[in-house]
């Protein structure tokens, strides 16, 4: 595994070096990331990068295919708009973790801030701790797993994202409803937790059957017909 010190280097230089090492098949450990923003942005090849410390905004944003591990916490917009790949944060994540992802997996082995999974279109987001308000807002697809508590307005205005909550739900967002989990849901949750959560932490988390499932009630998907008639006739 190649080592890279982030100290004294620009973000552009760090990212370029990570890409160069990945292109030749090296796994990379980046030391002293210093909570710097925009690290590991747009990694487009398979390969592994480990940040040995906390990272700032948009770490692993716009990524496709790589595996990124953060041995610390992450700022806003973790892995935003990711197409595929895997991002694991050993600490907590700021607001909008996994925003607008279209695939891949985001794991936060701590708490995650407001709007976790906002506008997510596919993929999986797993938070072993709790999530901030409006998590899952306008989610279009994929699965958001919150092992701890969900703050206010969970799952507001969603399309087809499915949220699973192991702890308390402070408040459901507009059009969010709790429905019965299926056996497939429980199996998916157990499999996902077993795969990404270390055994020492797993013992303290709920089992697949303990999660509540939250989906869109679909009442906001379309305006009502009276309104549509108005639009059609609008002059």
């Amino acid at each position, binding site marked *: 595994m190649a080592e890279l010190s982030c100290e004294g280097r620009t973000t552009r230089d760090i990212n370029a070096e990570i890409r160069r090492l990945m292109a030749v098949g090296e796994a990379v450990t980046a030391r002293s990331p210093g909570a710097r923003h925009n690290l590991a942005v747009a990694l487009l090849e398979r390969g592994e990068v480990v940040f040995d410390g906390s990272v700032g*905004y948009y770490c692993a944003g*716009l990524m496709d295919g790589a595996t990124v591990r953060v041995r610390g916490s992450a700022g806003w*917009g973790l892995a935003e708009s990711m197409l595929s790949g895997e991002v694991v944060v050993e600490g907590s994540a700021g607001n909008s973790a996994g925003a607008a992802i279209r695939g891949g997996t985001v794991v936060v082995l701590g708490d995650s801030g407001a709007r976790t999974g906002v506008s997510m279109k596919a993929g999986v987001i797993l938070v072993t701790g709790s999530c901030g308000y409006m998590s899952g807002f306008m989610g*279009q697809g994929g699965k958001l797993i919150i092992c701890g508590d969900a703050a206010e307005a969970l799952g507001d205005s969603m399309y087809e994202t499915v949220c699973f909550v192991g702890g308390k739900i402070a408040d459901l967002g507009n059009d969010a409803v709790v429905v019965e989990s299926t056996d497939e849901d429980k199996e998916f949750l157990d499999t996902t937790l077993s795969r990404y959560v270390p055994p020492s932490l797993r013992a303290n988390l709920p089992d697949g059957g303990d999660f509540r499932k939250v989906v869109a009630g679909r009442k906001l998907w379309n305006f009502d017909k*009276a309104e549509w008639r*108005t639009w059609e*006739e609008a002059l």
Partner: protein
Amino acid sequence: MAESSPRVLQKSGIFSSRVIEDIQTKAESGVYRIRGYGTLRERRWATFDDLTFLPCSLTRIPLEGYREKCETRTVLGTRFAEQPIELDIPIMITGMSWGALSYNAKVALAKGASEIGSSNTTGDGGMLAAERANSRTLVYEVLPSRYGIDVHHMRLSDGIELTIGQGAKPGTGGLLLDSKVSGEIARQRELPAGVDQRSPARHPDMLGPDDMIIKIEELREATDWRVPIFVKLGASRVYDDVKLAAKAGADVVVVDGMEGGTGASPAILQEHTGVPTLAAVCEARAALEDMGLYGEVQLIIAGGIRDGVDAAKAMALGADAIYIGTAALIALNCNRPLYVEDYHKLGTEPHFCHHCHTGRCPVGVTTQDPELMKRLPIDEGAERVTNLLRAMTLEIQMLARACGKSDVHHLEPEDMAALTPEASAICQVPLAGTRRVWGS
């Protein structure tokens, strides 16, 4: 017996027929009204029509109108990008989504713009492969919805536009009603087919200008610092917003005035929000000048630009380039008296149609219906777009030469006089017939 005097009917100036109809419609439905196109109000504010050019006479020497060279080459993104955009003309096609527009319309715009050395912009919903293939220069829009966002497409683009808002409805998100969310569009946007898609107003991962500094750096990292980053603003607090965008690191600032168009939006937003384009360009220029960045950060102006005259006036007031949207759609036959019976089915007439929101566009421009779309052959549409862009460019050159300029970008406020006190005060050019700027 005395003759009775003729009855004199007097209509309320407040409760006009249109207002009565609007109130009664809302009293029945209980909801606000939605439509497309942009503001329908008769002009009640200062516009480009309130300015006139002052061509050369004895004080300045004109260029030969049909002979002498007048440069139109336009370069955008010289501040930080390694590969600034170079266009042959200063008029560009603004972002309009595949979804709001038909496939044929999107491809026709791309081909038409490329033919004359201009650019096209993607719009909400991501990039269409045929759009890229047919665009010489393509600007990739990053919008709050992030529909179809794809880093690979971003890296294929020639510029990135981070859209904060649009002129027709600043402060709100997009709207695409169910008839236009076809299976194909739904797949592209990763939505259930047939929903009334309401896009978010805010970006999912950033809020204010401080976040935007970091977001711009992310977009540069994703594109290897190669392409220019535009920031597009719906015109509201233009002076402050432009300063914040420039400070955040934008290469190019786009300001879209309230006359800008839309595929669908609540009508009140189109009529009662935002700042007119004339005012917006003046505020934007002042902001850049006050920061010492005028000329370093390029300015694109959009919003109801109809012809080369509007474009030339906007450039004289400070724009480096001009976006057109609705005008380009009109070139594609929007509101043309073809298939008139289908206008009637919508309860409207050619020249009065603003029913883009219905998805039943009679001329195949703003529809996802395959049969309606066939009414817009791509190559014919592209030729019309090219012709419009050519004609507009010739108009700008004509005015520039008459004002003695060998480059259209040399047009300046001194080349114009105001025809109304309002325009004089806004544009800081003298009122015609006087030697003073109104209000100064």
